[in-house]
């Protein structure tokens, strides 16, 4: 049972892959955009922060689910 719980929690944390790819793409594009138009840095950073926060939410959900699995099924 303990192994299964550990595997389940591990699978739940795989959501981090999506968040990592998403934040990576967003940051790469933002860097390109700042290189092209350095004067728009403030606006770009603002949107980047928003996008990262939204992309990161999936990873957080995965983490919360993993935690719930460990604690509820123990």
């Amino acid at each position, binding site marked *: 049972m303990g192994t299964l719980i550990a595997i389940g929690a591990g699978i739940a944390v795989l959501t981090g892959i999506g968040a990592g790819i998403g934040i990576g793409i967003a940051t790469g594009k933002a860097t390109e955009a700042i290189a092209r138009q350095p004067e728009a840095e403030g606006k770009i950073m*603002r949107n980047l922060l*928003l996008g990262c926060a939204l992309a990161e939410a999936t990873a957080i959900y995965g*983490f919360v689910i993993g935690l719930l699995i460990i*604690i509820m099924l123990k």
Partner: protein
Amino acid sequence: MMSVCPFIIIWKKGSGHLSNLSKDLSEALTIKTAFSFKIAGHTIAVSESVVVTWIIMAILIALAIFLTHGLKVKNPGKKQIFLESVMSAGYNLFYGILGDNGAGYIPYLLTVMFYLGFANLIGIIGFTPPTKDLNVTLALALMSIVLIEYSNAHHNGGKKFFKSFAEPLPLMTPFNIMEIGIRPLSLCMRLFGNVLGSFVVMELLKAVCPLFLPVPFSMYFDIFDGLIQMIVFVFLTALFMQEGLIDD
């Protein structure tokens, strides 16, 4: 000497580690009661997060009184210059998002920002951060969604407020209604998950290698992540408000 190399420690602790960990995790998740008192036969338990919030309130009120004491128009002191630069930076950040229509909501957002900043950083001096308690983040998220919907209804009037649920297409109405529930849920889970996540990672690091290794990670997880989450929370609230505050 052993604790310098993390792998030896993991190998030594072996398979019993997971059960200890889950015990530690559930201990970290439970909300401790600081003290309880009785009123007319009912026992009222005051949790630790409430007490820490009182401490933060005391710090913020003391700071407010100290910093606003003796403000001058001519020859401002260092204290006043610091205060003015911080406040105008915060004000301009939100003014850029909300514009004239939402300028009245900026003091609330700044208050939440200062509270969250202190709440996330207070773990450094040994208190339990109140944002690790799901009830605190849920209350903040509910306040945010009430403010978002109120500002929309107040600016646009009742008829236009209800009409805005059927935009851009009438087909989208169920999703727009669902958003009222999803937005505070995601705001609350994001803050809670980040603070708890960094707490758990730090506990794991301390268990694996208590020497030197936690220091740089603590800089990231305790300070940087806490400040980022503070900005993200108020920032998202302001952005959601902005949608309802635009003049057509």
